[in-house]
């Protein structure tokens, strides 16, 4: 309600339901100067002293006929050994998730393995049938998914769901023994009060707790292989760090092989022993994490790594003089959730006395985890959500006191770009109209507005011809450019970008960020950049506000906040940035692969 988390399903759009149109967006089509990558960049994985836990050899997965490409992945080979974490990295549509599903023989109907083989502990998975297959799934190989909420049966207590896994593979246990066993497992994955948690339903747990339950379930039968499909994408950054650490700990403890699917090179940097980079269903590069991250051989890999936002901290620009364009004073907002006729309503504080000011040409990042109230702040400034108290002064005028036509007039000065590029454009409106509509609402003649719209579309990197097309003909990144054009058509003084790049692939993200930076300079825009991703905040903002539960915990110049955070919470957030140490410290190396546990 209060804060939109980056929607997990956006970067995921790719996989098993591979026929969703947006999932098949040609990868990296906005990446300048890409060229067709070479085929296999490395041969089959080097055989270790012992047989690999997982051996994927020449795997080709065919998509149902009528899709935009015949194969989800082609000729993919890699191997995982005991006690090794291999990261499979790629953007939307790279086919990485299909591989994960193929390993457990969980491909959606219509999608099939067309060539190659997957062997786990030397056994060909494709040959497994019936009881053997079931014994393998959840026994030899465990799997966890991106969305822990939807991956758990919402109507069953989590304890029962864990117990079921044990019963299936190890046979029934006496009631008490089973309960203790389950509670022990839940304790192992770091859940507090396991006896209480076992009796809870998934909806009663937090996102991180749910993912821990999923891990407990996957680990219940001591599998040799754990397949984790984007396990942290839907989680907050601090939770993500914890879950990754947990997986790593368990791996070390049990010596299992881990296949981790991710789109985030930060995650790769934190946990991977070896990396497999996928693009459009083909492996473009494999190697040790150190080698791939530090010395990528493939230009695509390099582009991806370069695109990872990192705190390239610029010296702070001098604080502009004069009156701020926008001043927010003591904004307050409490959401009241009515729970029923007789239960006391629940109160959620989204803004507890927020104040900020913004000068022309300045960019302010508002960061926080989900529920911190950052999106509500943006919406309140836009007057999309009515604050309970406080003032919003735009050019000296209090927006809160405006109504009707006066408010409408005031809106020109203030525009917003939303997170979801697919929901932000009216599917029935031509792109040119979407851009021109604003000026026309303020009296610009149609012809003039349309011409301006075409020019703007060109400016944001689209062709003028785009004006006559409908939104569904564009990719996510292109749509976000259209949204930016639309917001700028009114020549606002202030632009609010609400998680504007969170739903995009990294490479696209980098381009859109670059565009925003350019436009800001060009139009001397004041910008509020709302994001959950501290790396992005560091990259674009002059100043940062850190929000927690509707309060500002820390505020200051980006460089200062990042290099010398004063608050513990800020520090925790910074520490949790995946791959931070790796990317910021060129000399940093991950500890070597731990010796195998006997």
């Amino acid at each position, binding site marked *: 309600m209060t804060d939109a988390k980056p929607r997990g399903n956006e970067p995921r759009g790719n996989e098993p339901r591979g026929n969703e149109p947006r999932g098949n967006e040609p990868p990296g089509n906005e990446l300048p100067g890409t060229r067709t990558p070479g085929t296999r960049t490395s041969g089959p994985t080097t055989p270790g002293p012992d047989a690999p836990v997982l051996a994927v050899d020449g795997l080709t997965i065919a998509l149902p006929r009528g899709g935009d490409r015949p194969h989800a992945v082609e000729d993919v080979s890699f191997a995982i050994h005991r006690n090794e974490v291999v990261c499979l990295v790629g953007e939307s549509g790279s086919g990485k998730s299909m591989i994960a599903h193929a390993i457990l023989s*969980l491909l959606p109907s219509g999608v099939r393995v067309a060539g190659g083989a997957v062997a786990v502990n030397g056994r060909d998975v494709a040959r497994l049938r019936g009881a053997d297959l079931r014994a393998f799934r959840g026994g030899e190989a465990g799997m966890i998914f991106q969305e822990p909420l939807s991956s758990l049966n919402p*109507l069953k207590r989590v304890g029962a769901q864990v117990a079921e896994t044990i019963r299936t593979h190890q046979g029934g246990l006496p009631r008490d023994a089973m309960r203790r066993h389950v509670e022990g497992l839940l304790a192992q994955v770091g859940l507090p009060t396991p006896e209480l948690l076992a009796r809870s339903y998934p909806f009663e747990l937090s996102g991180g707790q749910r993912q821990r339950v999923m891990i407990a379930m996957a680990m219940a039968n001591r599998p040799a292989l754990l397949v984790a499909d984007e396990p942290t994408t839907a989680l907050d950054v601090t939770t993500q760090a914890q879950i990754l650490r947990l997986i790593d700990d368990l791996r070390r403890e049990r010596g299992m092989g881990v296949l981790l699917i991710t789109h985030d090179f930060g995650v790769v940097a934190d946990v991977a022993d070896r990396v497999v980079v996928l693009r459009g269903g083909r492996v473009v590069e494999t190697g040790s994490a150190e080698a791939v991250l530090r010395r990528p051989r493939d230009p695509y890999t390099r582009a991806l790594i370069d695109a990872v936002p990192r705190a390239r901290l610029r010296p702070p620009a001098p604080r502009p003089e004069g009156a701020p364009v926008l001043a927010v004073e003591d904004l307050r907002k409490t959401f009241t959730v009515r729970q029923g*006729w007789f239960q006391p309503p629940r109160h959620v504080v989204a803004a507890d006395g927020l104040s900020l000011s913004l000068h022309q040409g300045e960019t302010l990042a508002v960061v926080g985890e989900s529920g911190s109230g950052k999106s509500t702040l943006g919406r309140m400034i836009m007057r999309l959500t009515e604050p309970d108290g406080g003032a919003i002064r735009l050019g000296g005028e209090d927006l809160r006191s405006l109504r009707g036509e006066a408010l409408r007039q005031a809106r020109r000065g203030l525009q917003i770009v939303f997170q979801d590029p697919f929901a932000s454009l009216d599917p029935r409106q031509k792109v040119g109209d979407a851009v021109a509509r604003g000026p026309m609402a303020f009296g610009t003649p149609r012809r003039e507005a349309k011409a301006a719209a075409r020019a703007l579309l060109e400016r944001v990197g689209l062709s003028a011809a785009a004006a006559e097309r409908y939104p569904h003909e564009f990719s996510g990144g292109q749509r976000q450019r259209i949204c930016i054009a639309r917001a700028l058509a009114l020549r606002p003084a202030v632009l609010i970008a609400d998680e504007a790049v969170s739903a995009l692939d990294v490479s696209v993200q980098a381009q859109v960020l670059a565009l925003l930076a350019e436009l800001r300079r060009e139009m001397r825009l004041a910008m509020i950049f709302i994001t959950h991703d501290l790396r992005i905040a560091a990259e674009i903002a002059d100043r940062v506000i850190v929000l927690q539960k509707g309060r500002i915990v820390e505020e200051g110049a980006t460089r200062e906040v990042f290099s010398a955070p004063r608050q513990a919470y800020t520090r925790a957030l910074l520490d949790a940035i995946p791959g931070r140490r790796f990317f910021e410290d060129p000399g940093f190396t991950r500890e070597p692969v731990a010796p195998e546990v006997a």
Partner: protein
Amino acid sequence: MRRAAGIGLAAGAWIVRLVAVVLVIATFNFALVRAAPGDPAQVMAGQSGGADAKLLADLRAEYGLDQPYAVQLARHLGRVMTLDLGTSTQQRRPVLDLIRERLPATLLLTVTAFALALLLGSTLGVMAGLAAGSAADTAFTVVSLVLYAMPVFWLGLMLVLVFSVWLDWLPPFGYGTINARLGPWRQALDLLTYLAMPAASLGAIYLAIYARLMRAAIIEVAQQDFVKTARAKGLTATQIVVGHMLRNALVPVVTVAGMQAGALVGGAVVVETVFAWPGLGRLTFDALLQRDYPVMLGVFLILSVIVILFNLATDLAYRLIDPRMRARSA
């Protein structure tokens, strides 16, 4: 403790809602019925085969029809709250008694039809959903579409035509063989032969609805992540269907079942007419033709209460199925 308190609060909310709805409906019914052309005293007198002014005046005084509407309404609401639904102008008996006599038949019919439709429909829907795309599934879809488009009264007539007129297997009307001296089992069986066709014709359309819903729900649930999780855990197909999919698929079915309660009760009026089933539906229709105001008001009220109770039942079922609902209140 907390759960018990929650259920108590939920029950309280339901009672408040029931009372509110009853009051509003009572007022609404009252206004509507009084808006009708036709003087109930006239009908009562007219049906006596002759009438004169004295009889009319007597009847009006007797039933309070000579009072101002406001007074009549106030009296009506006051009585409704004390469960006094007045006296039938036609049958000269307390409306509550009339309703009590007819209620069991209607409940038997509607509950049987409802249960039959829900159980059979869900079962068929699960089977079709699991076999989606097969020939059997296609046949199922066609049959359920036809059933869904079938006018209830016509289906009833066709059943009578086939099973009573042509085959002579089932009695075409009635509510048990009268005066047959049978043991309890035989008697139940006897009643069943009378119940079969009315329940079938009333239930058919809902069977189709629930089956189609269930089929869609199963197909949808089958695509959900937790089913994938269950497969990844190594569960058998049966374990997955029974242990994970069924309950989740029931949620939309139960939701719709609750919304259908009103239609079910409405359908009962028609079915009871076709099969001479001595329930509230027939009572409604007869009372309507005779403008028996107290009976009409009473029956409409009770039918609405039945609908609310059906809603309550589905709400409870919903809570039973879905713990997320339990956490909230009504």
